[in-house]
Protein backbone atom coordinates (compact mmCIF):
# COMPACT_ATOMS: atom_id res chain seq x y z
CA UNK A 1 0.00 0.00 0.00
CA UNK A 2 2.70 2.47 0.98
CA UNK A 3 4.66 1.71 -2.17
CA UNK A 4 1.60 2.41 -4.28
CA UNK A 5 0.84 5.67 -2.50
CA UNK A 6 4.47 6.69 -3.01
CA UNK A 7 4.11 5.71 -6.65
CA UNK A 8 1.00 7.82 -6.92
CA UNK A 9 2.81 10.75 -5.32
CA UNK A 10 5.69 10.34 -7.77
CA UNK A 11 3.21 10.20 -10.64
CA UNK A 12 1.56 13.41 -9.48
CA UNK A 13 4.97 15.10 -9.05
CA UNK A 14 5.93 14.08 -12.58
CA UNK A 15 2.59 15.35 -13.81
CA UNK A 16 3.10 18.71 -12.08
CA UNK A 17 6.63 19.10 -13.44
CA UNK A 18 5.85 18.13 -17.02
CA UNK A 19 4.14 21.33 -18.26
CA UNK A 20 7.05 23.36 -16.87
CA UNK A 21 9.62 21.16 -18.60
CA UNK A 22 7.81 20.62 -21.90
CA UNK A 23 5.27 23.42 -22.30
CA UNK A 24 5.07 22.88 -26.05
CA UNK A 25 4.30 19.14 -25.90
CA UNK A 26 1.03 19.20 -23.97
CA UNK A 27 -1.17 17.53 -26.58
CA UNK A 28 0.79 14.28 -26.56
CA UNK A 29 0.83 14.33 -22.75
CA UNK A 30 -2.95 14.76 -22.69
CA UNK A 31 -3.33 11.76 -24.99
CA UNK A 32 -1.02 9.69 -22.80
CA UNK A 33 -2.88 10.69 -19.63
CA UNK A 34 -6.24 9.86 -21.18
CA UNK A 35 -4.89 6.43 -22.12
CA UNK A 36 -3.43 5.99 -18.63
CA UNK A 37 -6.92 6.53 -17.24
CA UNK A 38 -8.74 4.47 -19.85
CA UNK A 39 -6.35 1.52 -19.72
CA UNK A 40 -6.42 1.53 -15.91
CA UNK A 41 -10.23 1.67 -15.96
CA UNK A 42 -10.33 -1.07 -18.61
CA UNK A 43 -8.10 -3.17 -16.41
CA UNK A 44 -10.59 -3.17 -13.52
CA UNK A 45 -12.69 -5.41 -15.75
CA UNK A 46 -10.11 -6.85 -18.15
CA UNK A 47 -7.23 -7.44 -15.76
CA UNK A 48 -8.58 -7.65 -12.21
CA UNK A 49 -11.80 -9.44 -13.11
CA UNK A 50 -10.31 -11.17 -16.17
CA UNK A 51 -13.11 -10.19 -18.56
CA UNK A 52 -11.45 -8.85 -21.70
CA UNK A 53 -13.50 -6.13 -23.37
CA UNK A 54 -12.94 -4.96 -26.93
CA UNK A 55 -15.76 -2.48 -26.72
CA UNK A 56 -14.50 0.21 -24.37
CA UNK A 57 -14.58 2.80 -27.16
CA UNK A 58 -18.34 2.64 -26.59
CA UNK A 59 -17.85 4.25 -23.18
CA UNK A 60 -15.39 6.79 -24.54
CA UNK A 61 -17.96 7.70 -27.18
CA UNK A 62 -20.80 7.85 -24.68
CA UNK A 63 -18.93 10.24 -22.42
CA UNK A 64 -17.81 12.43 -25.33
CA UNK A 65 -21.26 12.58 -26.93
CA UNK A 66 -22.99 13.34 -23.64
CA UNK A 67 -20.68 16.27 -23.05
CA UNK A 68 -20.90 17.53 -26.64
CA UNK A 69 -24.67 17.20 -27.00
CA UNK A 70 -25.23 18.49 -23.49
CA UNK A 71 -23.30 21.65 -24.28
CA UNK A 72 -24.51 22.26 -27.83
CA UNK A 73 -28.16 21.20 -27.58
CA UNK A 74 -29.18 21.65 -23.97
CA UNK A 75 -26.72 24.19 -22.62
CA UNK A 76 -25.77 21.73 -19.91
CA UNK A 77 -22.40 22.30 -18.22
CA UNK A 78 -19.87 19.61 -19.23
CA UNK A 79 -19.31 18.36 -15.67
CA UNK A 80 -23.00 17.60 -15.27
CA UNK A 81 -23.28 15.92 -18.63
CA UNK A 82 -20.08 13.97 -17.90
CA UNK A 83 -21.69 12.68 -14.70
CA UNK A 84 -24.81 11.82 -16.66
CA UNK A 85 -22.65 10.04 -19.25
CA UNK A 86 -20.98 8.05 -16.48
CA UNK A 87 -24.34 7.02 -15.06
CA UNK A 88 -25.59 5.94 -18.48
CA UNK A 89 -22.32 4.09 -19.12
CA UNK A 90 -22.75 2.22 -15.84
CA UNK A 91 -26.37 1.42 -16.67
CA UNK A 92 -25.43 0.11 -20.12
CA UNK A 93 -22.57 -1.91 -18.65
CA UNK A 94 -25.02 -3.42 -16.20
CA UNK A 95 -27.49 -4.31 -18.94
CA UNK A 96 -24.82 -5.69 -21.24
CA UNK A 97 -23.12 -7.62 -18.47
CA UNK A 98 -26.43 -9.03 -17.30
CA UNK A 99 -27.00 -10.43 -20.76
CA UNK A 100 -23.50 -11.68 -21.48
CA UNK A 101 -21.73 -12.67 -18.25
CA UNK A 102 -23.25 -16.09 -18.59
CA UNK A 103 -20.89 -16.46 -21.54
CA UNK A 104 -17.44 -17.74 -20.70
CA UNK A 105 -14.15 -17.35 -22.50
CA UNK A 106 -13.93 -15.40 -25.75
CA UNK A 107 -17.69 -14.99 -26.19
CA UNK A 108 -17.96 -12.12 -23.76
CA UNK A 109 -15.12 -10.39 -25.61
CA UNK A 110 -16.84 -10.86 -28.96
CA UNK A 111 -20.09 -9.51 -27.57
CA UNK A 112 -18.37 -6.30 -26.46
CA UNK A 113 -17.30 -5.62 -30.06
CA UNK A 114 -20.96 -5.85 -31.02
CA UNK A 115 -21.88 -3.57 -28.12
CA UNK A 116 -19.62 -0.75 -29.35
CA UNK A 117 -20.69 -1.33 -32.92
CA UNK A 118 -24.37 -0.96 -31.96
CA UNK A 119 -23.64 2.38 -30.32
CA UNK A 120 -21.66 3.50 -33.37
CA UNK A 121 -24.59 2.68 -35.64
CA UNK A 122 -26.95 4.53 -33.33
CA UNK A 123 -24.66 7.55 -33.43
CA UNK A 124 -24.55 7.44 -37.24
CA UNK A 125 -28.24 6.88 -37.82
CA UNK A 126 -29.90 8.99 -35.15
CA UNK A 127 -28.76 12.22 -36.77
CA UNK A 128 -31.33 14.39 -34.96
CA UNK A 129 -29.50 13.66 -31.71
CA UNK A 130 -25.89 13.03 -32.65
CA UNK A 131 -25.33 14.95 -35.86
CA UNK A 132 -25.10 11.62 -37.68
CA UNK A 133 -22.02 10.75 -39.70
CA UNK A 134 -21.01 14.41 -39.96
CA UNK A 135 -20.54 14.62 -36.21
CA UNK A 136 -20.83 17.38 -33.61
CA UNK A 137 -18.70 20.47 -33.07
CA UNK A 138 -18.24 21.91 -29.62
CA UNK A 139 -18.08 25.64 -30.31
CA UNK A 140 -18.53 27.15 -26.87
CA UNK A 141 -17.87 25.92 -23.36
CA UNK A 142 -18.64 27.50 -20.01
CA UNK A 143 -15.70 28.97 -18.09
CA UNK A 144 -15.81 27.68 -14.52
CA UNK A 145 -13.71 29.93 -12.23
CA UNK A 146 -12.54 31.71 -15.36
CA UNK A 147 -10.88 28.57 -16.73
CA UNK A 148 -10.80 28.25 -20.50
CA UNK A 149 -11.64 24.60 -21.18
CA UNK A 150 -10.36 24.93 -24.75
CA UNK A 151 -6.92 25.80 -23.41
CA UNK A 152 -4.41 22.93 -23.64
CA UNK A 153 -2.98 23.80 -20.25
CA UNK A 154 -6.40 23.44 -18.58
CA UNK A 155 -7.08 20.24 -20.46
CA UNK A 156 -3.74 18.89 -19.33
CA UNK A 157 -4.63 19.41 -15.66
CA UNK A 158 -8.00 17.80 -16.16
CA UNK A 159 -6.40 14.81 -17.89
CA UNK A 160 -3.87 14.51 -15.06
CA UNK A 161 -6.72 14.65 -12.55
CA UNK A 162 -8.58 11.95 -14.45
CA UNK A 163 -5.55 9.63 -14.58
CA UNK A 164 -4.76 10.16 -10.88
CA UNK A 165 -8.39 9.59 -9.90
CA UNK A 166 -8.59 6.26 -11.75
CA UNK A 167 -5.25 5.00 -10.44
CA UNK A 168 -6.22 6.16 -6.94
CA UNK A 169 -9.44 4.15 -7.12
CA UNK A 170 -7.55 1.05 -8.20
CA UNK A 171 -4.96 1.50 -5.43
CA UNK A 172 -7.80 1.76 -2.92
CA UNK A 173 -9.70 -1.28 -4.14
CA UNK A 174 -6.63 -3.46 -4.70
CA UNK A 175 -6.19 -4.17 -1.00
CA UNK A 176 -9.80 -4.54 -0.04
CA UNK A 177 -12.59 -7.05 -0.26
CA UNK A 178 -13.78 -6.05 -3.72
CA UNK A 179 -10.27 -6.17 -5.19
CA UNK A 180 -9.75 -9.71 -3.93
CA UNK A 181 -13.21 -10.78 -5.09
CA UNK A 182 -12.28 -9.57 -8.57
CA UNK A 183 -9.05 -11.58 -8.60
CA UNK A 184 -10.73 -14.66 -7.19
CA UNK A 185 -13.38 -14.56 -9.91
CA UNK A 186 -10.68 -14.16 -12.56
CA UNK A 187 -8.70 -17.11 -11.26
CA UNK A 188 -11.49 -19.61 -10.65
CA UNK A 189 -15.21 -18.88 -10.43
CA UNK A 190 -16.09 -22.14 -8.68
CA UNK A 191 -13.46 -21.62 -6.01
CA UNK A 192 -14.57 -18.00 -5.66
CA UNK A 193 -18.13 -19.15 -4.98
CA UNK A 194 -16.83 -21.49 -2.28
CA UNK A 195 -15.53 -18.33 -0.58
CA UNK A 196 -19.00 -16.79 -0.71
CA UNK A 197 -18.32 -14.56 -3.71
CA UNK A 198 -21.07 -14.04 -6.29
CA UNK A 199 -19.17 -14.09 -9.61
CA UNK A 200 -21.84 -12.44 -11.74
CA UNK A 201 -22.45 -9.63 -9.29
CA UNK A 202 -18.72 -9.06 -8.91
CA UNK A 203 -18.21 -8.90 -12.67
CA UNK A 204 -21.17 -6.55 -13.07
CA UNK A 205 -19.78 -4.16 -10.49
CA UNK A 206 -16.38 -4.24 -12.21
CA UNK A 207 -17.95 -3.60 -15.61
CA UNK A 208 -20.02 -0.69 -14.30
CA UNK A 209 -17.08 0.94 -12.55
CA UNK A 210 -14.84 0.39 -15.56
CA UNK A 211 -17.43 1.77 -17.99
CA UNK A 212 -18.28 4.82 -15.90
CA UNK A 213 -14.62 5.81 -15.43
CA UNK A 214 -13.90 5.32 -19.13
CA UNK A 215 -16.88 7.55 -19.96
CA UNK A 216 -15.48 10.26 -17.69
CA UNK A 217 -12.27 10.25 -19.73
CA UNK A 218 -14.42 10.17 -22.86
CA UNK A 219 -16.12 13.41 -21.84
CA UNK A 220 -12.74 15.04 -21.47
CA UNK A 221 -11.63 13.59 -24.82
CA UNK A 222 -14.66 15.18 -26.45
CA UNK A 223 -13.61 18.57 -25.10
CA UNK A 224 -9.99 18.02 -26.17
CA UNK A 225 -10.99 17.13 -29.74
CA UNK A 226 -14.00 19.50 -29.72
CA UNK A 227 -15.17 17.64 -32.79
CA UNK A 228 -16.85 14.25 -32.49
CA UNK A 229 -17.70 11.77 -35.20
CA UNK A 230 -18.98 8.22 -34.73
CA UNK A 231 -16.15 6.68 -36.74
CA UNK A 232 -13.58 7.94 -34.25
CA UNK A 233 -15.52 7.73 -30.99
CA UNK A 234 -16.93 4.25 -31.17
CA UNK A 235 -14.16 2.85 -33.33
CA UNK A 236 -12.96 -0.73 -32.78
CA UNK A 237 -9.36 0.44 -33.19
CA UNK A 238 -9.74 2.67 -30.13
CA UNK A 239 -11.14 -0.25 -28.14
CA UNK A 240 -8.24 -2.42 -29.24
CA UNK A 241 -5.74 0.29 -28.38
CA UNK A 242 -7.12 0.67 -24.85
CA UNK A 243 -7.05 -3.08 -24.28
CA UNK A 244 -3.59 -3.46 -25.82
CA UNK A 245 -2.20 -0.66 -23.66
CA UNK A 246 -3.32 -2.42 -20.50
CA UNK A 247 -2.21 -5.86 -21.67
CA UNK A 248 1.27 -4.72 -22.74
CA UNK A 249 1.73 -2.86 -19.48
CA UNK A 250 0.50 -5.73 -17.33
CA UNK A 251 -3.07 -6.84 -16.67
CA UNK A 252 -4.23 -6.87 -13.10
CA UNK A 253 -1.38 -4.71 -11.85
CA UNK A 254 -1.82 -1.20 -10.51
CA UNK A 255 0.87 0.48 -12.59
CA UNK A 256 0.84 -1.78 -15.66
CA UNK A 257 -1.81 0.06 -17.70
CA UNK A 258 -0.19 3.41 -16.90
CA UNK A 259 3.23 2.10 -17.94
CA UNK A 260 1.67 0.63 -21.07
CA UNK A 261 0.16 3.98 -22.00
CA UNK A 262 3.46 5.78 -21.56
CA UNK A 263 5.41 3.20 -23.56
CA UNK A 264 2.89 2.60 -26.34
CA UNK A 265 1.40 6.04 -26.88
CA UNK A 266 4.70 7.76 -26.15
CA UNK A 267 6.74 5.56 -28.48
CA UNK A 268 3.97 5.65 -31.07
CA UNK A 269 4.39 9.40 -31.21
CA UNK A 270 8.19 9.22 -31.33
CA UNK A 271 8.09 6.58 -34.08
CA UNK A 272 5.62 8.61 -36.10
CA UNK A 273 7.85 11.65 -36.11
CA UNK A 274 11.19 9.89 -36.57
CA UNK A 275 10.46 6.91 -38.82
CA UNK A 276 7.67 8.33 -40.95
CA UNK A 277 6.38 5.49 -43.13
CA UNK A 278 7.97 2.68 -41.13
CA UNK A 279 6.44 3.74 -37.82
CA UNK A 280 3.64 1.16 -37.73
CA UNK A 281 6.09 -1.62 -38.56
CA UNK A 282 8.37 -0.65 -35.69
CA UNK A 283 5.37 -0.20 -33.41
CA UNK A 284 4.25 -3.72 -34.31
CA UNK A 285 7.71 -5.14 -33.63
CA UNK A 286 7.78 -3.43 -30.23
CA UNK A 287 4.45 -5.01 -29.28
CA UNK A 288 5.63 -8.39 -30.51
CA UNK A 289 8.84 -8.21 -28.49
CA UNK A 290 6.97 -7.30 -25.30
CA UNK A 291 4.40 -10.04 -25.79
CA UNK A 292 7.12 -12.63 -26.46
CA UNK A 293 9.45 -11.73 -23.62
CA UNK A 294 7.02 -10.38 -21.05
CA UNK A 295 3.77 -12.28 -21.55
CA UNK A 296 2.38 -10.90 -18.30
CA UNK A 297 3.12 -7.38 -19.46
CA UNK A 298 5.96 -5.09 -18.44
CA UNK A 299 4.87 -4.46 -14.87
CA UNK A 300 3.32 -7.92 -14.50
CA UNK A 301 6.66 -9.67 -15.08
CA UNK A 302 8.51 -7.26 -12.84
CA UNK A 303 6.16 -7.67 -9.85
CA UNK A 304 6.02 -11.44 -10.15
CA UNK A 305 9.80 -11.58 -10.07
CA UNK A 306 9.88 -9.21 -7.12
CA UNK A 307 7.42 -11.37 -5.16
CA UNK A 308 9.47 -14.51 -5.86
CA UNK A 309 12.71 -12.80 -4.93
CA UNK A 310 11.29 -11.35 -1.74
CA UNK A 311 9.95 -14.74 -0.69
CA UNK A 312 13.24 -16.51 -1.54
CA UNK A 313 15.19 -14.00 0.51
CA UNK A 314 12.88 -14.35 3.47
CA UNK A 315 12.95 -18.15 3.26
CA UNK A 316 16.78 -18.14 3.37
CA UNK A 317 17.11 -15.87 6.34
Amino acid at each position, binding site marked *: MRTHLLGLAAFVALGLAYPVLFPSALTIAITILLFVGWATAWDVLGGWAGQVSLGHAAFVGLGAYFVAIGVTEYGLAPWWSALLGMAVAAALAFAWGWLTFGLRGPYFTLSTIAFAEILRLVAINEGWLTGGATGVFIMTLPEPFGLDLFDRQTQYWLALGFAVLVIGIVVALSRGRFG*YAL*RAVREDEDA*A*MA*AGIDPKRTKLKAFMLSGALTALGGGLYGIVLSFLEPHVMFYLLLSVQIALTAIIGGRGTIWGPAAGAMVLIGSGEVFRTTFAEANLLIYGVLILVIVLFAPRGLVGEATRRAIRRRYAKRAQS
Partner: protein
Amino acid sequence: MPSALRAEGLTVRFGGNVAVSDVSLALAPGEILGLIGPNGAGKTTLFNALTGYVTPESGRVSLFDRDITRLAPHERARAGCGRTFQTERPFEELTVLENVLVAAFLHEPRRSGAERLARETLEQVGLGDRADQPAGDLNLARRRRLELAKALATRPRVIFLDEVMAGLNPPALREMIAFVSELSRKGLAVLMVEHIMEAIVELSDHVIVMASGAKIAEGAPEAVMRDERVIEAYLGTD
Protein backbone atom coordinates in the same frame (compact mmCIF):
# COMPACT_ATOMS: atom_id res chain seq x y z
CA MET B 1 -29.85 -31.73 18.89
CA PRO B 2 -30.67 -30.20 15.49
CA SER B 3 -29.03 -31.55 12.38
CA ALA B 4 -26.20 -29.41 11.11
CA LEU B 5 -26.85 -30.80 7.67
CA ARG B 6 -29.77 -32.82 6.42
CA ALA B 7 -30.52 -34.11 2.95
CA GLU B 8 -33.75 -35.83 2.04
CA GLY B 9 -34.32 -37.86 -1.10
CA LEU B 10 -31.70 -36.14 -3.21
CA THR B 11 -31.77 -37.22 -6.85
CA VAL B 12 -29.47 -35.82 -9.50
CA ARG B 13 -29.88 -36.69 -13.16
CA PHE B 14 -27.50 -35.82 -15.98
CA GLY B 15 -29.47 -36.27 -19.18
CA GLY B 16 -30.77 -39.82 -18.94
CA ASN B 17 -28.27 -40.96 -16.31
CA VAL B 18 -29.15 -40.98 -12.66
CA ALA B 19 -25.95 -39.86 -10.93
CA VAL B 20 -27.43 -39.71 -7.44
CA SER B 21 -30.57 -41.63 -6.61
CA ASP B 22 -32.76 -40.82 -3.63
CA VAL B 23 -30.00 -40.26 -1.08
CA SER B 24 -30.79 -39.01 2.41
CA LEU B 25 -28.34 -38.20 5.18
CA ALA B 26 -28.11 -36.33 8.44
CA LEU B 27 -25.14 -34.91 10.25
CA ALA B 28 -24.96 -33.41 13.74
CA PRO B 29 -22.56 -30.67 14.90
CA GLY B 30 -19.21 -32.20 15.86
CA GLU B 31 -19.95 -35.36 13.93
CA ILE B 32 -17.82 -36.76 11.12
CA LEU B 33 -19.63 -38.49 8.28
CA GLY B 34 -17.51 -40.49 5.84
CA LEU B 35 -18.76 -40.95 2.32
CA ILE B 36 -17.16 -43.86 0.48
CA GLY B 37 -17.76 -45.95 -2.60
CA PRO B 38 -16.03 -47.06 -5.77
CA ASN B 39 -15.18 -44.59 -8.54
CA GLY B 40 -18.25 -43.36 -10.35
CA ALA B 41 -20.51 -44.08 -7.39
CA GLY B 42 -21.79 -40.52 -7.37
CA LYS B 43 -19.95 -39.28 -4.27
CA THR B 44 -18.65 -36.11 -5.84
CA THR B 45 -22.00 -35.40 -7.50
CA LEU B 46 -23.74 -35.79 -4.15
CA PHE B 47 -21.14 -33.47 -2.68
CA ASN B 48 -21.80 -30.91 -5.40
CA ALA B 49 -25.55 -31.17 -4.91
CA LEU B 50 -25.11 -30.52 -1.19
CA THR B 51 -22.87 -27.51 -1.78
CA GLY B 52 -24.96 -26.09 -4.61
CA TYR B 53 -22.71 -26.72 -7.59
CA VAL B 54 -25.18 -29.17 -9.11
CA THR B 55 -28.95 -28.70 -9.10
CA PRO B 56 -30.82 -31.75 -7.88
CA GLU B 57 -33.90 -32.92 -9.73
CA SER B 58 -35.70 -33.62 -6.49
CA GLY B 59 -35.09 -33.73 -2.78
CA ARG B 60 -34.11 -31.06 -0.30
CA VAL B 61 -31.06 -29.93 1.63
CA SER B 62 -31.17 -28.04 4.90
CA LEU B 63 -28.54 -26.46 7.08
CA PHE B 64 -29.48 -26.13 10.75
CA ASP B 65 -33.13 -26.48 9.73
CA ARG B 66 -32.86 -23.78 7.09
CA ASP B 67 -33.83 -24.96 3.62
CA ILE B 68 -30.89 -24.26 1.31
CA THR B 69 -31.99 -26.39 -1.65
CA ARG B 70 -32.48 -23.38 -3.92
CA LEU B 71 -29.40 -21.46 -2.84
CA ALA B 72 -26.44 -20.88 -5.17
CA PRO B 73 -22.98 -22.07 -4.03
CA HIS B 74 -21.88 -18.62 -2.84
CA GLU B 75 -25.08 -18.25 -0.84
CA ARG B 76 -24.50 -21.62 0.80
CA ALA B 77 -20.97 -20.53 1.64
CA ARG B 78 -22.44 -17.48 3.37
CA ALA B 79 -24.93 -19.72 5.17
CA GLY B 80 -22.08 -21.78 6.60
CA CYS B 81 -21.01 -24.44 4.09
CA GLY B 82 -17.25 -24.59 3.63
CA ARG B 83 -15.79 -26.86 1.00
CA THR B 84 -12.54 -28.03 -0.50
CA PHE B 85 -12.12 -29.19 -4.06
CA GLN B 86 -10.89 -32.61 -5.07
CA THR B 87 -8.43 -31.12 -7.53
CA GLU B 88 -7.16 -28.41 -5.23
CA ARG B 89 -7.69 -24.99 -6.66
CA PRO B 90 -5.44 -22.28 -5.30
CA PHE B 91 -5.77 -18.87 -6.91
CA GLU B 92 -2.39 -19.39 -8.53
CA GLU B 93 -1.54 -15.76 -9.16
CA LEU B 94 -2.12 -14.82 -5.55
CA THR B 95 0.12 -15.49 -2.59
CA VAL B 96 -0.81 -18.06 0.04
CA LEU B 97 -1.99 -15.34 2.40
CA GLU B 98 -4.06 -13.64 -0.30
CA ASN B 99 -5.75 -16.93 -1.13
CA VAL B 100 -7.00 -17.20 2.42
CA LEU B 101 -7.79 -13.49 2.55
CA VAL B 102 -10.31 -13.96 -0.26
CA ALA B 103 -12.23 -16.34 1.99
CA ALA B 104 -11.62 -14.37 5.19
CA PHE B 105 -13.30 -11.30 3.68
CA LEU B 106 -16.60 -13.20 3.78
CA HIS B 107 -17.13 -12.43 7.46
CA GLU B 108 -14.45 -9.79 7.99
CA PRO B 109 -15.15 -7.02 5.50
CA ARG B 110 -12.24 -4.88 6.71
CA ARG B 111 -8.71 -5.61 5.58
CA SER B 112 -7.18 -5.62 9.06
CA GLY B 113 -9.70 -8.09 10.45
CA ALA B 114 -9.57 -10.29 7.37
CA GLU B 115 -5.79 -10.37 7.42
CA ARG B 116 -5.73 -11.32 11.09
CA LEU B 117 -8.22 -14.13 10.46
CA ALA B 118 -6.27 -15.31 7.41
CA ARG B 119 -2.96 -15.41 9.31
CA GLU B 120 -4.55 -17.25 12.21
CA THR B 121 -6.04 -19.80 9.86
CA LEU B 122 -2.69 -20.28 8.12
CA GLU B 123 -1.01 -20.87 11.48
CA GLN B 124 -3.72 -23.36 12.32
CA VAL B 125 -3.04 -25.46 9.21
CA GLY B 126 0.72 -25.06 9.56
CA LEU B 127 1.31 -22.74 6.63
CA GLY B 128 2.17 -19.68 8.70
CA ASP B 129 5.69 -19.49 7.29
CA ARG B 130 4.45 -19.74 3.69
CA ALA B 131 2.17 -16.71 3.76
CA ASP B 132 4.07 -14.70 1.16
CA GLN B 133 4.79 -17.51 -1.27
CA PRO B 134 2.93 -17.56 -4.60
CA ALA B 135 0.24 -20.22 -4.14
CA GLY B 136 1.04 -21.80 -7.50
CA ASP B 137 4.47 -22.81 -6.14
CA LEU B 138 3.19 -24.99 -3.27
CA ASN B 139 3.63 -28.77 -3.29
CA LEU B 140 0.67 -31.13 -3.07
CA ALA B 141 0.51 -31.57 0.71
CA ARG B 142 0.70 -27.82 1.25
CA ARG B 143 -1.91 -27.16 -1.42
CA ARG B 144 -4.24 -29.45 0.51
CA ARG B 145 -3.67 -27.48 3.65
CA LEU B 146 -4.24 -24.28 1.76
CA GLU B 147 -7.57 -25.68 0.51
CA LEU B 148 -8.48 -26.41 4.11
CA ALA B 149 -7.42 -22.94 5.22
CA LYS B 150 -9.55 -21.36 2.50
CA ALA B 151 -12.57 -23.38 3.59
CA LEU B 152 -11.99 -22.67 7.29
CA ALA B 153 -11.51 -18.94 6.81
CA THR B 154 -15.16 -18.67 5.72
CA ARG B 155 -16.02 -19.73 9.32
CA PRO B 156 -18.17 -22.67 8.22
CA ARG B 157 -20.54 -24.64 10.41
CA VAL B 158 -20.40 -27.65 8.12
CA ILE B 159 -17.23 -28.47 6.23
CA PHE B 160 -17.13 -30.61 3.12
CA LEU B 161 -13.77 -32.29 2.53
CA ASP B 162 -13.36 -33.81 -0.92
CA GLU B 163 -10.47 -36.30 -0.77
CA VAL B 164 -8.13 -34.13 1.23
CA MET B 165 -6.07 -37.19 2.21
CA ALA B 166 -5.38 -38.55 -1.27
CA GLY B 167 -1.75 -38.68 -2.32
CA LEU B 168 -0.34 -37.64 1.06
CA ASN B 169 2.71 -39.46 2.41
CA PRO B 170 2.28 -41.24 5.78
CA PRO B 171 3.44 -38.42 8.08
CA ALA B 172 1.36 -35.86 6.19
CA LEU B 173 -1.60 -38.23 6.33
CA ARG B 174 -1.27 -38.59 10.12
CA GLU B 175 -1.19 -34.83 10.49
CA MET B 176 -4.26 -34.38 8.33
CA ILE B 177 -6.19 -37.03 10.27
CA ALA B 178 -5.30 -35.35 13.56
CA PHE B 179 -6.32 -32.01 12.12
CA VAL B 180 -9.75 -33.16 10.91
CA SER B 181 -10.37 -34.85 14.24
CA GLU B 182 -9.54 -31.57 15.98
CA LEU B 183 -12.04 -29.72 13.78
CA SER B 184 -14.88 -31.99 14.83
CA ARG B 185 -13.87 -31.68 18.48
CA LYS B 186 -14.38 -27.95 18.08
CA GLY B 187 -17.96 -28.63 17.04
CA LEU B 188 -17.70 -28.46 13.29
CA ALA B 189 -19.80 -30.95 11.35
CA VAL B 190 -17.57 -32.73 8.83
CA LEU B 191 -18.65 -34.52 5.68
CA MET B 192 -15.75 -36.19 3.92
CA VAL B 193 -15.40 -38.10 0.72
CA GLU B 194 -12.35 -40.28 1.07
CA HIS B 195 -10.68 -43.29 -0.49
CA ILE B 196 -8.11 -43.74 2.28
CA MET B 197 -9.79 -46.34 4.51
CA GLU B 198 -7.39 -45.72 7.36
CA ALA B 199 -8.73 -42.17 7.61
CA ILE B 200 -12.35 -43.23 7.24
CA VAL B 201 -12.17 -45.89 9.94
CA GLU B 202 -10.28 -43.72 12.35
CA LEU B 203 -12.28 -40.53 11.92
CA SER B 204 -15.86 -41.32 10.95
CA ASP B 205 -18.62 -41.55 13.50
CA HIS B 206 -20.79 -42.74 10.72
CA VAL B 207 -20.20 -44.01 7.19
CA ILE B 208 -22.37 -43.97 4.09
CA VAL B 209 -21.46 -46.26 1.22
CA MET B 210 -22.57 -45.39 -2.28
CA ALA B 211 -22.57 -47.45 -5.46
CA SER B 212 -24.09 -46.53 -8.82
CA GLY B 213 -25.63 -43.39 -7.38
CA ALA B 214 -27.48 -45.05 -4.54
CA LYS B 215 -26.82 -45.44 -0.84
CA ILE B 216 -26.17 -49.15 -0.30
CA ALA B 217 -25.07 -49.21 3.32
CA GLU B 218 -24.84 -46.98 6.34
CA GLY B 219 -23.60 -47.31 9.89
CA ALA B 220 -20.55 -47.43 12.09
CA PRO B 221 -17.33 -47.81 10.06
CA GLU B 222 -16.34 -51.31 11.27
CA ALA B 223 -19.83 -52.71 10.72
CA VAL B 224 -20.12 -51.19 7.26
CA MET B 225 -16.76 -52.62 6.18
CA ARG B 226 -18.02 -56.14 6.90
CA ASP B 227 -21.28 -55.61 5.02
CA GLU B 228 -21.79 -58.10 2.16
CA ARG B 229 -23.10 -55.47 -0.26
CA VAL B 230 -20.16 -53.20 0.41
CA ILE B 231 -17.60 -55.90 -0.22
CA GLU B 232 -19.49 -56.82 -3.36
CA ALA B 233 -19.59 -53.23 -4.59
CA TYR B 234 -15.85 -52.81 -4.09
CA LEU B 235 -14.62 -56.21 -5.23
CA GLY B 236 -17.39 -57.33 -7.57
CA THR B 237 -18.95 -60.79 -7.45
CA ASP B 238 -17.50 -63.93 -8.99
